[in-house]
């Protein structure tokens, strides 16, 4: 029993995969387009200038009797977002995989969008959705769901795209040979092949999503304050009321929710997805889940599968039989012409986008605003860098120790995954109380909150890497009696590097996002404030200053993309090329 369970699917995560290290022309193009999109949104949001519209919702009551209902509402929001993300994934990723032109736009867009701080989105979208459903909570609900969606959709779509592009050639040939219709081929070949990667990414996205659902339930944009019924709002009210008991209750409720999610959703689905693993030999160790075993014994899985199978067949029967596809055609002159038109269209769009950005920034921002934002960005960057380094120094040795001992790994791994899913912002108030009580410097002591929730990604990826480390290499290094330092340097660190990079990238990305809620904190009337880009965005949001929100988001995106390109991607490539075991 050399390894525990394989948690990682053999796909580089979004942000690590990609051909070039340097930003290319396409990245720049897409970046300008996305930035212009934000500018347009911000501009529109200002125009709305809705009078402080009080939302007619039920106020949040800090009564434990309401807590189960709030927890349920929070969970439902989560599921609404995941369904939206799945639909987005199926449409967009399939489009990118099937059309070369769509691919050229979608891929860089996904890469940049995943670097945009999710909580920054909220500012504009709240204004929009509120106008869409005037006087009702539905608008705010949509905004919250949309915020969670933006934290999940990109890497799911990317994983699905990657799988679609790597469907084994011979299976594709079988599909064409037996003349499967595109619909049947999608459900019999492409979707099953992509399932393990997509499901793993969906589950990781959901784990990350809890953080955002909590953060997006209670939000203030300018004069509009929204508190949707949920654990996040309960927490916000508790903070205003300085009610530590309510905070503790929220932590407990959240823990129960995550535990149920882990046992009833995450594990059964991962165990089920194992069936789709593309392997030709049966693995000895498979993911376990008691809920899945129950389902299976109740033949529920088979029944569900049968129902889904008949649905697929029904649609297949209803659609007209397509003409046999021509056996791949050559690129013709008209295709070239279309290419030229396409490029011209994109260029025109970029020019227009640039013009809009210049107009917008000239009207509202000065050059020193940009300098300020970048200065603050560097401060936050320093925080993220120092904290990831500290977290690595602590968790890499611990993770290796655990990973090399199967009995420990099987016990610790679920705990690490649970901790990664637990929304750390629920714990923030407790830390803030401590900082206030001991009069600590918020510039230093607010920082650890940024990695509170994200450090676990480093831990469980390192555990996975160490568990997968081949026994024969370990035995060989024992025989050579390597000294401690040599063993770390030449044996285990190279062995776990791909896993570590994946974990550290996720952790760093999460920390940037967390900065927006971690650099500004309050306890009743006491406001704690750390200088940084996160606080800059948070303050601009509270003040309803859309121009500065856009600037903050833009600067943060540039910093995150640069980190990915200049640090993580080269590291990952090195790891892939030199240290890939198997």
């Amino acid at each position, binding site marked *: 029993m050399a390894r525990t369970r394989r948690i990682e699917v053999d796909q580089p995560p979004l942000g690590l995969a990609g051909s070039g290290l340097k930003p290319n022309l396409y990245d720049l193009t897409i970046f300008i387009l996305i930035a212009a999109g934000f500018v347009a949104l911000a501009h529109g949001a200002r125009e709305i200038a809705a009078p402080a519209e009080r939302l007619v919702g039920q106020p949040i009551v800090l009564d434990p009797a309401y807590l189960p209902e709030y927890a349920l509402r929070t969970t439902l929001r989560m599921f609404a977002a995941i369904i939206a993300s799945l639909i987005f994934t199926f449409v967009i990723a399939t489009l990118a995989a099937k059309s070369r032109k769509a691919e050229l736009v979608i891929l860089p867009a996904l890469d940049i969008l995943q670097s945009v701080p999710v909580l920054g989105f909220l500012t504009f979208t709240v204004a929009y959705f509120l106008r869409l459903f005037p006087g009702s909570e539905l608008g705010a609900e949509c905004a919250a769901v949309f915020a969670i969606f933006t934290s999940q959709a990109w890497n799911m779509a990317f994983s699905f795209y990657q799988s679609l592009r790597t469907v084994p050639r011979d299976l594709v040939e*079988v599909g064409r040979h*037996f003349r499967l219709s595109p619909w049947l081929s999608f459900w*019999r*070949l492409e979707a099953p092949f992509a399932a393990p990667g997509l499901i793993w990414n969906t589950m990781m996205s959901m784990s990350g999503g809890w953080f955002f659902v909590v953060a997006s339930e209670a939000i203030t944009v300018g004069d509009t304050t929204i508190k949707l019924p949920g654990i996040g709002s309960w927490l916000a009210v508790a903070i205003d009321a300085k009610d530590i008991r309510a905070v503790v209750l929220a932590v407990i409720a959240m823990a129960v929710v995550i535990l149920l999610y882990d046992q009833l959703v995450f594990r059964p689905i991962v165990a089920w997805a194992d*069936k789709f693993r593309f*392997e030709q*030999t049966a693995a000895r160790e498979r993911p376990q889940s008691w809920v899945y075993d129950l389902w299976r014994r109740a033949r529920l899985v088979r029944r569900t599968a049968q129902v889904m199978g008949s649905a697929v067949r029904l649609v297949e029967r209803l659609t007209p039989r397509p003409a*046999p*596809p021509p056996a*791949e055609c050559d690129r013709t002159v008209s295709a070239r012409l279309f290419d030229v038109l396409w490029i011209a269209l994109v260029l025109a769009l970029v020019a227009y986008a640039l013009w809009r950005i210049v107009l917008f920034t000239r009207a509202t921002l000065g050059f020193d605003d940009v300098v300020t934002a970048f200065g603050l960005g560097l401060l936050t960057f320093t925080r993220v860098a120092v904290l990831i380094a500290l977290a690595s120094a602590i968790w890499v040795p611990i993770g290796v120790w655990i990973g090399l001992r199967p009995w420990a790994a099987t016990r610790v791994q679920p705990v690490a995954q649970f901790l990664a899913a637990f929304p750390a912002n629920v714990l923030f108030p407790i830390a803030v109380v401590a900082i206030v009580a001991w009069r600590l410097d918020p510039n230093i002591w607010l920082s650890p909150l940024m990695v509170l929730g994200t450090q676990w990604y480093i831990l469980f990826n390192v555990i996975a890497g160490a568990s997968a480390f081949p026994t024969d290499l370990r035995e060989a290094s024992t025989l050579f009696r390597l000294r401690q330092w040599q063993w770390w340097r030449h044996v285990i660190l190279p062995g776990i590097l791909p896993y570590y990079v994946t974990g550290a990238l996720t952790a760093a990305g999460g920390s940037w996002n967390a900065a927006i809620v971690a650099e500004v904190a309050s306890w009743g009337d006491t406001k704690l404030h750390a200088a940084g880009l996160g606080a800059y965005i948070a303050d601009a949001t509270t003040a309803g200053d859309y121009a500065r929100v856009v600037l903050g988001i833009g600067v943060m995106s540039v910093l995150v993309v640069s980190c990915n390109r200049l640090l993580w991607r080269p590291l990952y490539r090195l790891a892939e090329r030199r240290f890939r075991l198997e």
Partner: protein
Amino acid sequence: MMDKLDELLIVDHIRQAYPKGSGEDLLVLDDVNLRLRDNEIVSLLGRSGCGKSSLLRIIAGLMPSTGGNVSIGGRPVSGPAPEVAMVFQTFALFPWLTVLENVELGLEAQRVPAAERHKRALAAIDLIGLDGYESAYPKELSGGMRQRVGLARALVVHPRILLMDEAFSALDVLTAETLRTDLLDLWSEGRMPISSILLVTHNIEEAVLMSDRIVVLASNPGRISAEIKVDLPQPRNRLDPAFRRLVDDIYARMTARAAKPSQGLFPGTGISMHLPRVSPNLMAGLMEQVAAEPHRGKADLPALAGPLQMEIDDLFPVAETLQLLRFAEVAEGDIKLTDAGRRFVDLAPDDRKRLFAQQVMAYVPLVGHIKRVLDERESHAAPASRFRDELEDHMSVQFADQTLRTATSWGRFGEVFAYDEDTGVFSLDNPA
């Protein structure tokens, strides 16, 4: 009798070319003509890279040809043809579908009603000897059983022609033999719903064992070099002298072309010669084998292939590389060591390297070219990309990569030059 009516498959002047870096296209198949009649098994025999799999895919309608026509039962093929079903070398089963679901797949695409689909799939599974495994997943089965699923999946759609693409080559020797025998039994008893079988193989004995007719494909570009009728009665015995004679004869035909090394064993000339992936250790191993008892410097290739468990795809590239380096001569199915080859076998490791370096420098223009460039430069170093670009002007990216890797490996073995993988730089100084 060449009655037009019983010509099931007509392959007419098929030509296949791929564009390459610069200049002319790379010709893979050149003017291939082939007929397949009812009730016969025909083998397409050739080495890897001779385009035989491409030909099969063109026939199946999976790939368009650059020129020529294919027609089945009088109708031209312009896309995946319903009259043929293919068995794949890699089995190509869907791992998430059970045996039954895999077999039903083709029928599902044809929208056969569920009840009939089920009945036909079970019949095919039964025929091929898989009963009891209907609900198993492919990963639970051995290689032989998996290929039976592949066979059942092909038969269940009732094709007229069964195409087999190296269907036995991924199986171990015993399993492959059992499956071949079972297939021949079903064929001779007329229990399979098919008219003819076209099988692609690089295994000479397999072709002789199974087919009524063998079509030999030569490489660079792929073209038909011989057509051999096999009259031996079924079941055939590999040890039958007539069987052995036929095998030897085909070996001779397939190596005859290589008699004149100046004409080029490998496609391309000068530094753009495509080099095969053959390691110096493999060359040394084969030379030792030929030098040893009972061959004493001259061996019959089939006799050498048997005990070494090598198929022609493994053996020929090594033999031809030895010929390129003038360590051996290959002709008429025999391999004979040259003086250099005999000397090499007797030398100590360091002297072997020196002799190898001499031969490689003399007869592999690319290695000589790299060495010259390094000598001329003051730094005695040059990036690999420089040579890769040069090669890519003459061949595809994959071939350029393979050729440069081979040149690197041979140059390193002979200590002609050193190569640093990390920096991608060739240099003259050996790492300390």
